[in-house]
């Protein structure tokens, strides 16, 4: 655990010294925060068309199980609540997409810089190395996403119609951003680190990691179209399952990490 902490501290220090690498994460987070406000508040205000006057939006918002509790609020607030809750799904992807580059470069970068050999000569376990690599990519992006989420909630509280915040902040949304988001990021980044340890090019690792974004986009579309509405309990189960998958993936990563290949096939 101590060695994992030492490696993690090194990874975080390295990322902090390479702030440009975090710029895409900040950008994605800012877009994630701003986009719902543009759609739910900015465009209606600019065009003078109220959200509550759009019959389709009212129908979708009313059909959404998550906003059923908010049927007694005004139509505008009901649609805003629906939109703000759906856009929360973007926070599942923000940490993942942002950290993907960092994770993809993690082991390949060490290979290219030839810095792995002295590391492998220490008592550091392969699992500690790979977990540190993954967490080193995840934690900074998770922190930025968390900051974005705080801005998002503060924005909803300040700018949305009365009653919207109380509808958006519910057990489902909390399970989504607190469990499913980090869980999906854990799995995607560990997968990326795993691939990163086996390939010669960070782009290859990144492409594999992106694979996990596909089901999340599917989940988002299904939510939007009311095809799928997972309960808070179901989302909690999904989050925990992702955590379990991460542990399995970490073990697989450590098993397939070929120390000898790293030393002898990198010239």
């Amino acid at each position, binding site marked *: 655990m*101590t060695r994992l902490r030492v490696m993690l*501290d090194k990874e975080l220090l*390295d990322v902090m010294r390479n702030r440009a690498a975090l710029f895409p994460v900040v950008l994605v987070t800012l877009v994630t925060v701003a986009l719902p406000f543009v759609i739910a508040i900015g465009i209606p205000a600019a065009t003078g068309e109220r959200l509550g006057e759009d019959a389709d939006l009212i129908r979708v918002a009313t059909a959404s199980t998550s906003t059923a509790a908010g049927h007694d609020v005004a139509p505008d607030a009901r649609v805003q609540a629906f939109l703000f809750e759906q856009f929360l799904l973007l926070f599942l992807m923000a940490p993942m997409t942002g950290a993907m580059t960092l994770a993809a470069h993690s082991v390949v970068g060490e290979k290219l*810089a030839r810095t792995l050999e*002295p590391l492998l000569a220490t008592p550091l*376990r392969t699992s500690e190395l790979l977990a540190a690599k993954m967490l080193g990519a995840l934690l900074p992006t998770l922190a930025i996403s968390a900051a974005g989420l705080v801005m998002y909630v503060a924005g909803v509280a300040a700018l949305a119609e009365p009653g919207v915040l109380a509808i958006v902040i519910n057990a489902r949304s909390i399970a989504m951003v607190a469990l499913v988001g980090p869980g999906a990021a854990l799995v995607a980044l560990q997968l990326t680190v795993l691939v990163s340890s086996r390939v010669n090019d960070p782009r290859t690792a990144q492409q594999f990691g992106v694979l996990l974004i596909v089901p999340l986009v599917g989940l988002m579309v299904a939510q939007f179209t009311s095809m799928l509405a997972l309960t808070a309990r179901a989302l909690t189960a999904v989050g925990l399952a992702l955590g379990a998958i991460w542990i399995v993936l970490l073990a697989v990563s450590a098993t397939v990490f070929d120390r000898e290949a790293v030393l002898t096939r990198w010239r």
Partner: protein
Amino acid sequence: MIVASHLTRRFGARTAVEDLTFEITTSQIVAVVGPNGAGKTTTLRMLAGLLQPTHGDVIVDGVALTPASARAVSRRIGFLTETPALWDRLTVRENLGVYAGLYSVARPTAAVDRVLNLLDLANRASSRTAELSRGLRQKVALARALLHQPSILLLDEPTSGLDPEVTRDVRRLFDELRAAGTTLVVSTHNLDEAERLADRIAVLHGRLLAFDRPAALRQRLTGGRTIVRVCGDAGSFLPIARAIDPDAAADGSSLTIRVADADRDISSLVRTLVEAGADIVEVRPHTPPLEEAYLHLLKHPLRPDTAGPHA
């Protein structure tokens, strides 16, 4: 102490090193020399537990090196890689601090300070390693290998990129470490360095061609040849010399003669030459540069049973 028995490493169909057997006792410096691709780095990696031998065993301080024991054994070993392998965005102190943590060094800050002072790097402790010259980077890498005070140092080209003054300081440091009980195995292309540094030299070319003291390696090559310098032309004394050694040669005022036993035969040789009228100016053993011995060994490998695997 390191004991290697019949170490062989293959990469697919290619054999990098084959059947290396040697023993390195405590407080010795062994220089591993050989041409590019001779297997020097592969050998060091096997001794460090980074590569598993295809055949054979390594025993480090009485512990057999296996995948299971490699982590424990790694605490006894300081390993300097072929390239400095530093994290460019971290400072010198931060680079060393990470390794102090990974080796669970008891007082990491003090340990880092110790090696910084030892390598005269204290004034660059706060510099990012990307800003350092190649020589300084190499010194930092060396400091990293010494951090946890290992009993065995495996050093791949340790003086590569260092200027002559620093190289001398590093050699002095190696002498001090040896005196303090550390065993050093140093891979190098620099035969002069090998001769200055090492108690034993391992000449490697896929196989262990020789493993002996530098003087003994030269002795093997020269086979006890002696140079006798006389006044005037040595050619006139060549028939006498050839009566002792049929391969004796004359060159200007010098005769080169091989004698079986220097203590016994040289006095007899001198007496014979003086009786034949030679005015002898100098008698000395023929000592070719180590490079000559090395090149001779590569072209004419010794039989395995004469390679001298024991330190």
